[in-house]
């Protein structure tokens, strides 16, 4: 399938990219890895006549520790994120989530910024970032701003990005001491497939009690989102199968999945419950291993 005609822009700086984006909106799209955008062009879901390639902008690349924050440039590929020693040391769950995306060929090219900005409901890295308390730094014609990751997602394929605004980086804080995290996803086959449901969990344990719990759901709502009520149930409790089952049931209730070729609403709710239980258990195990 041939793509629609578009003009190809290669800005060398962030300010140039933002200015172009603002000037050409709404007939412009930003190109990062393109693994979601190019197929969208093919199926005519994307029709912008201007494509602004971000690859040449230095600020969007690189993974580095910046004080008490790990910054991951938006153009870092998922393969880079999955294999980065910095990510593994700082918040290994993000590496696991990045690794679970698509095939090796896709991860070589797809970027963390694209995984966020395309805002596909079943994207794998956002739930991990949500439980890791990550933030998204954006740069626009009017300067930059930083949003909590959960505020970045507005709807299915909709984000808080304004015209001309570009995601610069993901910022991950130092993870709490004695915490552990888990990402559980269900897909219809082992190799390369989209998540039917996914749950990320971070548990912080102090002296055998849960002092902090964050749970995020993927692929079962228009946006990846935090299951705040379910997490609140766990705070202060000792970890137990019963407590996890209760929280998992609340996760399942709070999901708002759709019926599609990958699974029905009822099946997805079942999956959320099972995956939440598993993620809570694994995250707790991991937290215990790092606990005093």
């Amino acid at each position: 399938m041939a793509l629609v005609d578009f003009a190809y822009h290669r800005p060398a700086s962030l300010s140039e990219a933002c200015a172009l984006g603002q000037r050409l909106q709404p007939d412009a799209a930003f190109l990062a890895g393109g693994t979601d955008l190019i197929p969208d062009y093919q199926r005519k879901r994307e029709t912008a006549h201007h494509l602004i390639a971000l690859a040449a902008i230095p600020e969007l690349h690189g993974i580095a520790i910046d004080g008490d924050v790990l910054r991951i440039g938006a153009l870092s590929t998922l393969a880079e994120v999955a294999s980065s020693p910095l990510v593994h040391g700082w918040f290994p769950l993000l590496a696991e989530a990045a690794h679970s995306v698509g095939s090796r060929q896709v991860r070589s090219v797809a970027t963390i910024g694209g995984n966020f900005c395309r805002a596909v409901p079943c994207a794998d890295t956002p739930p991990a970032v949500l439980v890791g308390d990550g933030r998204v730094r954006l740069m626009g014609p009017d300067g930059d701003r930083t949003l909590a990751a959960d505020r970045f997602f507005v709807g299915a394929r909709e984000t808080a990005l304004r015209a001309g605004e570009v995601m610069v980086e993901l910022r991950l804080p130092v993870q709490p001491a004695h915490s552990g995290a888990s990402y559980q996803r269900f897909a219809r086959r082992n190799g390369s497939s989209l998540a039917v449901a996914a749950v990320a969990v971070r548990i912080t344990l102090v002296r055998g009690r849960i002092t902090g719990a964050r749970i995020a759901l993927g692929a079962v709502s228009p946006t990846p989102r935090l299951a705040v009520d379910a997490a609140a149930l766990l705070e202060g409790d000792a970890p137990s199968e019963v407590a996890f089952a209760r929280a998992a049931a609340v996760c399942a209730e709070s999901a708002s999945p759709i019926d599609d070729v990958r699974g029905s609403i009822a099946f997805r709710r079942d999956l959320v419950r099972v995956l939440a239980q598993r993620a809570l258990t694994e995250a707790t195990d991991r937290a215990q291993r790092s606990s005093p």
Partner: protein
Amino acid sequence: MSAELLVHLSVNGIEHAVAVEPQATLLTTLRHDLGLTGTKRGCGTGDCGACTVLVDGDAVNACLMLAAAADGKRITTVEGLAHGELHPLQQAFIHHGALQCGYCTSGALMSAKALIDANPEPATVEIKEALSGNLCRCGTYPRMIRAVAGWRQFAAVASDARPTDTGERDQRRDHDVVGVGVPRVDAADKVTGRAKYTADLRLPGMIVGRLLGSPIAHGLITRIDVSRARALPGVLAVLTGADVPQGWYGVSPAREDEQILATDRVRYVGDEIAAVAAVDEATAERALALIEVEFEELPAVFDAAAAMAPAAPTIHPEHPRYAGNINTRVDWHFGDVEQGFAEADHVREQHFIGNRPYQTPMEPHATVARWEHHSDRLTLWSSTQTPHYLHRSLSRMLGIPMGNIRVIRPAVGGGFGAKAEATPLDFCAAILARMTGRPVLMEYTREEMFRHFRGRHKQHIDLKIGVKRDGTITAVEQRVVLDGGAYTSFGVITAYYAGSMLPTLYRMPHYRYSGLRVYTNLPASGAFRGHGVPQPRFAFESLLDMIAEDLGLDPIELRLINAMSPNTRTVNALDVSSCEFRETLLRARETSGWSEKKGKLPPGRGIGVGCGGFVSGAGYPIYRSDFPHSNAMIRVHEDGTGATLHIAAAEIGQGSDTVLVQIAAETLGVPYDRVWLADCDTVVSPLDLGSYSSRVTLMAGHAVERAAADVMAQLFAVAAGELSCERAALRARGGRIFVADAPATGIDWAQAARIAFARQGPLLGKGSYQPPKGLGGDFKGGAVGTSPAYSFSTAVAEVSVDLETGYVTVDRVTDFSDAGTVINPVTFHGQVEGSIIMGLGETLLEDTLFDASGRLLNPNLHDYLIPTIGETPDIRTVAVESFEPNGPLGAKEIGEGSLLPVLGAIANAVYDACGVRVTELPITPEKILNGLAHGRPMLRAPRPHAAEVATP
């Protein structure tokens, strides 16, 4: 058009500056601008990996990367792997048989290359991970894993064109070439990207054609205006139904119900209504968008029951014989089932529902047509598995003699039945080439492939089996409603096959079958590997296990009690000759650990058995003809050091060319690498009916053997004169002709051939094969299911079921097959492994789904999921000792029969693992969870036969 960009690419070490349009992908730039056609387009959406190349060392889908985004990068394609010598990975792929149709091979090699560059000794789990984005529908995954794991063995080995035995060998025969795992004849071409598939052809002046499909499922075309499309610069021709030869075509002469382009009625979403030819793909697509079509939309029906309801719209009003949307009706009764059920101690009945899987060959259908106006001749290259039927269809529809048409089959990237008939691509390419005077290339997109379909019929099956207390079957009754889609395709034959093949496996004294194929407003179903039989076989094998449980019998024991014996005429008048079915059951039981495992594995793990078998070639051609079904010629080269085999049998990945060359070499008594293969080209090679009904090894094999014997009769005459002995005393082996009783007395084969050439000119042999006359019973449809020979297979599957999510993992499959003499163990095992993997997909994953308007919901490879390398179970396959008297050198089929046991084996293993009997395919996690939630097997109440519902 946007301004072109200049991009600099370093490809395989050569610097290129290429002017590209901004929307050009790296894939189109490599293929079209640089002519590197080893990189394939399989989907265009990053799902299949056929276009994998290395960009700065990383494996990347070239279809998802803009050429502009690759500016300044270092790119390696499959053409850059070998530097004179083959890369060790390429040698490993050849040696292990890690390729069949070859369409995914270059992509898989590139993913493997990226892996070994980073990790020279990868573990299996790492190989599976690295190659999970490279889909292979032939199912060569187990061999890819071995090849990548063992690539270093070839690092120090100079590549050698001469074949080496892979050491795989199942049977001992006194043969030099047959039975030996020689590499495929096309292996080197496929691992280097040199093999040309239809869409790889580049002819001077070639333009591009595209088809317009209907957006609605059923309606009348009230207006069609192509003037804006015709006026678009770059458009050379536009066709509608009014511009093409009128009339109806179809696979079966009894049911010709398709038009090249719809004239007034469309019958499914995608039904072809117009075609354009333009200078390039983008222009052709823009032209399609400019065609204005208005419809009077009609009510549509999307399942068989709705189509048979009294008020249902008539889908083919032009053909009164299809009133009530009934396309085919079969009523067979052999023996007396009432009596048989009365004799039974136990009768069990169950309703089963099938799915609608698509063959999903990795290569999209493609055609190149060239009209030679000066001679009024047409040359057509097509990715077809039946060049002869295509040839005949073109002649009939275009109104030109077959002698003016040349059909060439280049390399074909898999078919499995999807490419067994002429398509609108073939007809329209020919017509557009004639109109424009330019060669025309037409290809389906992945989505168009799904829409054109011809995949498996969804069958609604009511099956009833009666048995004695000891398990002996007394009667079987099967009623099947087949959802046919909008056209017949192979469907008449499918409706018969669904009934005819059940009695070949188990003895049944009384059998009744009624089949009803119904038109609906969905894409047409056709012939898919195992043609019509997998779903009835799934039902039968499932019901046998249910009966075994009822009776307290071991499932394998129950099968042994009823297993077919050699030299038996079945109740429906099919003649089984060789049959080692019992042996396959016994060996499978013995080696799979059945007795220790069945019913004894922990919760969530299970083991199950399934059986199957198929024809070794249909006993009758699709249209009435007295011609031999397969024909071969062998021409010995003048100096006697080579011979060329001319045969038009269709290699589509299964390895038939290799098998035929082996039979030729064996019979000629020369080494394998002395035999060349002429192109599959109707000008070069005589008629062969093609690759369907698992016919090539047996039928074309016979023709080849006879052609070779014809050569040898002539050579022995020469040699007998030279050696002063009787012709009958002579043998030929290893390139030498000698006296059997005095092997030291002999003559070099090539020298004898030179003498023959000097005396008589070209040394030619010819051979033909016609199945035995009079096969089958004298009843309507008695021809379907006839064959010179039948295969038999038993598979034992072990699965794990996640009891919380319903996810099924197939851990291990053991298969024992009776395929007669194995000509090539590598291709034999490759076929069985591929069947297991394909069967796993259709049992657990695959189904084409439609919305309420008849639009496909999953016409792509990320929503229609086929197995990846990650799904590959631990597979063990064995050929049991067997010799088929009606087969060449004792051989029969393996390609289709080996699929049939898989569905039942997995279904039965799932039941053993979790107590859930899923009777509706595919066996999804959701169905298993529902069954677990209800705490009982997922049985559906028997419901009235749909035909009864429909009778007013």
